[in-house]
């Protein structure tokens, strides 16, 4: 800066600064005035807009149908059983009934919901190895997975880390009673529920001629009942690390109470338009202990809309904000009106003076 100045000085004798708008701080500028008349319109516009959006959101959220069953309460026996970790290999089945009063149309998702499960615990969130999940042959010894990285004999865990180790492993089936006695399995899709990017980019199985050989030399995480390559024996593209249930579980939720997509209704036969009204039963293989940490497990059936799920909050927030803004607008108007009378008084005063 200084150099430039003195160069300039050499060129022209005067060291007078440039008379440019920038240097003289005279740039054309918009000078908003925060007084009643100028902002009044914005208050009303924003307020009304918010009200409108809020009402739309509420209406759309209300169209969502949702059934929620707390099966950690319903299956108290199983819950008790799982509290003792020594019973880990004992099977426990449980079922929960419910009745749909009306048809549930549209895309229907089956969620499991956990309460008080702190998936967002700092060390829990870190406890994973993305490189391993991408199918790379990495030494996980020093990764964030510790202490769920290797067994004491040095066998690495696949997948490693606390997140994978604590994966939700209940199996839930839904059956529909066509009539009071015959029940048919509701067709549910296992895959396609996770993010496309997760399934296709972030998660890769180690390459090998088959999965079991790919995972040779590794062991399942301690809490798992079966190794990772047996997560879905029926579908090769939904097995191993790219198993949808696993992928979804690995996407750690933001809050201690959360739901994860478990299955999606396959729109076939009588379920083409969604779930018809009638009686249903959830058949649950209860493996995942929650009562230890005062958690709860629920199973959910829900449709979705453009604006998300059944949560009314955003709509309410918009409505309330809109209302408040409009109210503020009125207050300002009132003040402004009072002010304006004074002003005209003054304006009359002014010329006369």
């Amino acid at each position, binding site marked *: 800066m200084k150099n430039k100045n003195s160069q300039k000085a050499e060129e022209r004798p005067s060291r007078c600064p440039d008379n440019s708008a920038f240097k003289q701080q005279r740039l054309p500028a918009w000078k908003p005035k*925060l*007084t009643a008349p100028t902002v009044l319109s914005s208050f009303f516009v924003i307020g009304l807009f918010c009200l409108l959006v809020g009402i739309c959101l509420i209406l759309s959220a209300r169209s969502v149908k949702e059934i929620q069953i707390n099966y950690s309460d319903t299956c108290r026996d199983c819950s008790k059983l799982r509290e003792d970790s020594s019973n880990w290999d004992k099977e426990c089945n449980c079922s929960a009934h419910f009745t749909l009063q009306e048809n549930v149309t549209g895309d229907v998702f089956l969620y499991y919901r956990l309460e008080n499960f702190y998936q967002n615990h700092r060390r829990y969130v870190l406890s994973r190895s993305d490189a391993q999940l991408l199918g790379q042959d990495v030494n996980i010894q020093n990764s964030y997975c510790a202490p769920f990285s290797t067994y004491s004999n040095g066998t690495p865990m696949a997948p490693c880390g606390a997140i994978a180790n604590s994966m939700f492993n209940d199996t839930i089936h839904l059956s529909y009673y066509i009539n009071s006695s015959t029940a048919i399995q509701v067709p549910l899709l296992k895959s396609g529920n996770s993010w496309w990017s997760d399934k296709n980019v972030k998660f890769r199985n180690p390459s090998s001629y088959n999965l079991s050989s790919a995972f040779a030399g590794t062991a399942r995480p301690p809490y798992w009942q079966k190794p990772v390559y047996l997560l879905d024996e029926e579908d090769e593209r939904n097995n191993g690390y790219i198993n949808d249930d696993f992928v979804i579980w690995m996407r750690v939720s933001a809050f201690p109470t959360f739901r994860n997509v478990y299955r999606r209704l396959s729109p076939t036969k009588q379920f083409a338009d969604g779930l018809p009204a009638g009686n249903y039963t959830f058949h649950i293989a209860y493996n995942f202990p929650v009562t230890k*940490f005062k958690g709860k497990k629920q199973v959910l059936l829900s449709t979705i809309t453009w604006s998300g799920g059944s949560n009314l909050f955003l709509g309410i927030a918009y409505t309330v904000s809109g209302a*408040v803004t409009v109210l503020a607008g009125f207050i300002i108007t009132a*003040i402004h009106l009072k002010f304006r009378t004074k002003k005209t008084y003054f304006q009359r005063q002014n010329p006369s003076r």
Partner: protein
Amino acid sequence: KRESETRTVRSNLLLPEPEVEKPRRGPLASNRLKTTKYTALSFLPKNLFEQFHRLANVYFVFIALLNFVPAVNAFQPELALAPVLFILAVTAIKDLWEDYSRYRSDNEINHMECLVYCRNEKKYVNRFWKEVEVGDFVQLRCNEIIPADILLLSSSDPDGLCHIETANLDGETNLKQRQVVRRFLELDSEFDPLKFTSVIECEKPNNDLSRFRGYIVHKSGKKDGLYKENLLLRGCTVRNTEEVTGIVIYAGHETKALLNNNGPRYKRSKLERQMNIDVLWCVLILIAMCLFSAIGHGLWVWQYNEKKPVFDVPGFDGNYLSPVLAAVYLFLTMIIVFQVLIPISLYVSIEIVKVCQVFFIHQDKDLYDEETDSQLQCRALNITEDLGQIQYIFSDKTGTLTENKMVFRRCTVSGVEYSHDANARRLAMYQEADSEEEETPAKGGIVSQRDSISSHQSMKVVHRSLSTKSHRRTGSRAEAKRASILSKHTAFSSPMEKDITPDSNLLEKVNECARSLEFMRSHEQSLSQLTPELSDIFDFFIGLTICNTVVVTSPDQPRQKVRVRFELKSPVKTIEDFIRRFTPSRLTSGSNSSSSSSLSTSKSMHRLGSNSLSTTSTESTLLKLEEKFAHSAQMNNNGYSSQQGRKAIGIRPEERELRYEAESPDEAALVYAARAYNCALVGRLSDQVSVELPHLGTLTFELLHTLGFDSIRKRMSVVVRHPLTDEINVYTKGADSVIMDLLLPCSSDDPRGKHQKKIQSKTQNYLNLYAIDGLRTLCIAKRVLSKEEYACWLKSHLEAESSIENREELLFQSALRIETNLHLLGATGIEDRLQDGVPETIANLRKAGLQIWVLTGDKQETAINIAYACKLLDHDEEIITLNAESLETSAALLDQCLQYIETKFSNSTIDKSVGTMTVGFGPLSPPSSSLHSTLGLVIDGKTLAYALDKTLEDKFLSLARRCRSVLCCRSTPLQKSMVVKLVRNKLKAMTLAIGDGANDVSMIQVADVGVGISGPEGMQAVMASDFAIPQFQHLEKLLLVHGHWCYSRLANMVLYFFYKNAMFVALLLWYQFYCGFSGSSMIDQWYLIFFNLLFSSLPQMITGVLDKDIPADVLIAVPQLYRSGQKMEEYQPHMFWMNMIDALYQSLVCFFIPYFTYYDSDVDIFSWGTPITTIALFTIILHLAIETKTWTLFHWSSCIFSILLFFIVALVYNVSCPICYPPSNPYWTMEKLMGEPMFYLTCLISPVTALLPRFLYRTLQGTVFPTQLQLGRQLTRLPPETRSQNLDRNCSKVCNQNPTSQPFQHGNEPAFPTNTRAEHTTGLSVMASPPGALLCGENKHSSVANSEVQSPRIPHNTSEMESISVGEMFPWNSTIDQSGFSLLNWITSTPLFIRFGRVLQLSPSPLQNELAFGRSGHSF
């Protein structure tokens, strides 16, 4: 031990083996200039070391390192280092760049060339500056820059003189004379370096430019003293001398120029101090938050006790942490997570913003002075905002308030006053011309001189290109000066100062005097036959002409000084010629013994002085002296006749244009004045002065001694031998107070003495009159010394001169001895004209609430009159003058004054209750009501010294505080700084000191903000200052506009910074409630770390640099707006907390709207955290948008850029690599989110809701109870005509009203209390009003207050008319109704308001009043 205090320099040419001697030379610096701080190797460690001196950096590095501890790490350790490294890198790059530019300029200077004597080639060869070493012989040509401190050994000048221009060093443009070391002057042959065998002993390098002491020991064992006159200083330029040679004494960094160069200053501004307190609060908040989280986490872990949940991950060893240990670890983790609360980028941002602010201040055209081609300089980069908070201004008078252009106005000689009316008329004409068309005279001057310059310039061209390069370092000011030299030749010679119209009476007398002198000379009569008056006049002008240090040059021969002597060597015999023949000087030396030359005498004396003085030697001196005088008397008589002949042929010197280069403007003014009376100084050499007189021709005075001016003696003297009378005369010029005491006491017995006494008293009267006119007065006196007296004095003087230890002290004593028993000749009055716009500036600054104190060294009367002239004191003001002779009287005086003021206050209240009016007279107990603002305090240096005593300073301050203006006269530099310090420390006020001279340096350094005026008095003040402005009037814009802007911008930016960080961190805190206080963050670590650095930093910086709350013209027009800065209105402690609360609210909104929106959904942690980040960014930027007052293109683009940058970074980051950023894995998050309407809906509503309260508050506040600043802002929205109308009508007319034209009378008084009451009642019905009116409501208040109190001096008028005018002027009810809140505040904060219901009559004349007071002071 003595060795260590001196330096020994020998010629390098004598050293047999340079290689061997090199090591010995070690401690002596070479001439290589190295101002760089670093080398390539040392840069990193040294720079880092320096940076870690900043506590904040240490803190952030500590946190980053904490991340490397696995148990507590929160982020990827490498990433956590990023911001710290970034900050360090930015600073390092800045330092590196600065250092590099220093290196480049160093290099340039190092590679400048000069001629150095080379032993091998036996001649001077070109060498680079950096190769010059101590002991080298350097030859310099005219206009070359001196490469090192060089002892002058030879000069092409016949008198062994060398002229240098020291503008680079001290900004003084006049030429200074330097002399060749005496013994070398006598060399008959040319100086040969190879023969130089002497050894030089001198002081260690020091930074005192005005001092150099040492001696040179010759081979013969003889010693010669060395003085500053022998030293050529590095950086100066050789002028008017063909060629000089010298030996290098100090080189490189040991030169005085470089030792004086201490870079920019670092101060901590008030705002920053306040900010640091809030940073500490932030630390406390941070610790509290961390503790809270830690306890929360401990409890959370504890509640699961033995049942370890699957999501509680054990440590690496597989063991679970105990709750307590977990809490401890978490505490550290949280410090890392919440680190953003302590704004890492705050310090860097502030630094950058300040640099930009400085840039804009620099660029302001209004702070540019065309005349001197200089602009404002910011020398302290980091106290720009202090300019907006100044409460007290301490100003120097001369050169600051006044132009320091001395113009001869009038004089009195031997008791007769010559009023110089024509001259006064001429000056008035200049004033008019100035105001009408400023350009014309200057241009005309340049054009007329153009021809003469052109040659000068062309010769300079080569050297100029060189010199400009070097100037870049030493200060661009010097260059400005240079430009002004080119156009004007000399600093103190504007036509106004030069062309003095002589007073016809005096001119007549001068002519008469000259005629009679001529007559007497031609008739060989004694000069004593001249009437005393005429002889006084003659001596007066001789005194004016020769009693100075003015150097004469001629523009026609720019490279040669006017060599009167050469001309005189014409065939025609002159006095000088005779003298030269009989008293051989160095020019013709060798032929005669030196005994008869005065100089040789002094030399012999010198020798004697250095040995032990014996009585015989004294006698011999006397003898020599007498012998010499006999000689010269004889030849003088001979010279009479020949003089005639010379005059017949000779050219009159006046026809040539002579330039006078003076050290101070007074000197030049006096010499020009004398020239106007045809008594022209035509030449000055070290030992003689030539004066051209009418009829008499050129008289040459042998200059025996010059006793320079100093501020303690306050006078200077020359000792000359008068060519006509052949007497030894002492001409003394000095301040009247000193001279008057030194006059020869005259007995009232003999008539002559009586007459003299009369003259003295008359002169004293005139001096008083001059002072009242605001003129600077100087007395001229003379003393005739007998030879015995002279010889006696000479002995001791030479002794003093030759001593190396405390030479100054001895010389001072010596001067005191000779300057006694003076005969008063006359006195002069020099006008120091006020600078342009000073009264207006003072008025405006005062309206801005600034207290202005003037601290001057001038005498009381002059100071008071200048103060009146610049409206610092008002003629209606009551002036308290404190003059005391002792501590006790000062104490009593102060008490009395305080009591007096108290009485007035109490009286006024009593009056109010009684409802009657008391009119009283009397100096000490005028029972009158008064605001403190109508008091002016004048205190002189002596009393000030007592008042600053520990016991009295509180009283003095409490008195001074009550006065509207304070004037300290005759104050020493030290006192000035003490006063500033006192106000600064005791009143805790922000102080600004402004001055232009060396005597202001200490006060400039002490004040919070030091401002230097880059006037002609040199650079010392500028060098010591934080800001340097060309003229006093620029202070107005600097403070009112730039100060306000800088303060308001920075205050808002700092507050915003705190808000921003708090808001962002609070989001993380809320999340802890939902993650078991485990320290996890939903915001990706990348966003977390770069949020401050990248995404949200630019808009706030742009706002910090460019935001303008109020345009400049309004700030100038309504100076009251400045008070917001003084009261720290924009950044008060509670504002920090308000901002924190707002941040809390906003973060709650920004957290919980997304929380509830995504509650019970399958959202994952980062898909939820990214919208929050986005929302936070929107909110933060919109918050800034609400706070931004002016939207330029930069604001818009920076906001848009920030948001775009965030999205681009997020999108790229989320798509670039699925596994590269462990432990976070944000792959595709943003892409996915941007496909969902929920994201947009959330991002829309949250900022709106978060900002609604602030927006509403700002709106309501702006509508209902706008602050002064908001009103000012609204004023700008009015069309210009309306605005000016509003302002004119409501402010200017009222504020600037002259009390005499708008009289207010007692008749109105009853109306005021009711009005006051009305305000109190109506003040609460808060209503808005047109800005102009409301704003000026305050004005009216204060001005009414003033005017009302001022009113008593105005004769009573008809009160009906008065009330009408009041009604017209002040539509009180309406204004008061409207002004509401702020007005109410004002009233309540001004308790005095209610007291001035009564106004009382004071003695009508302020002067009388003040004098009375002064007398009473003395009478204690």
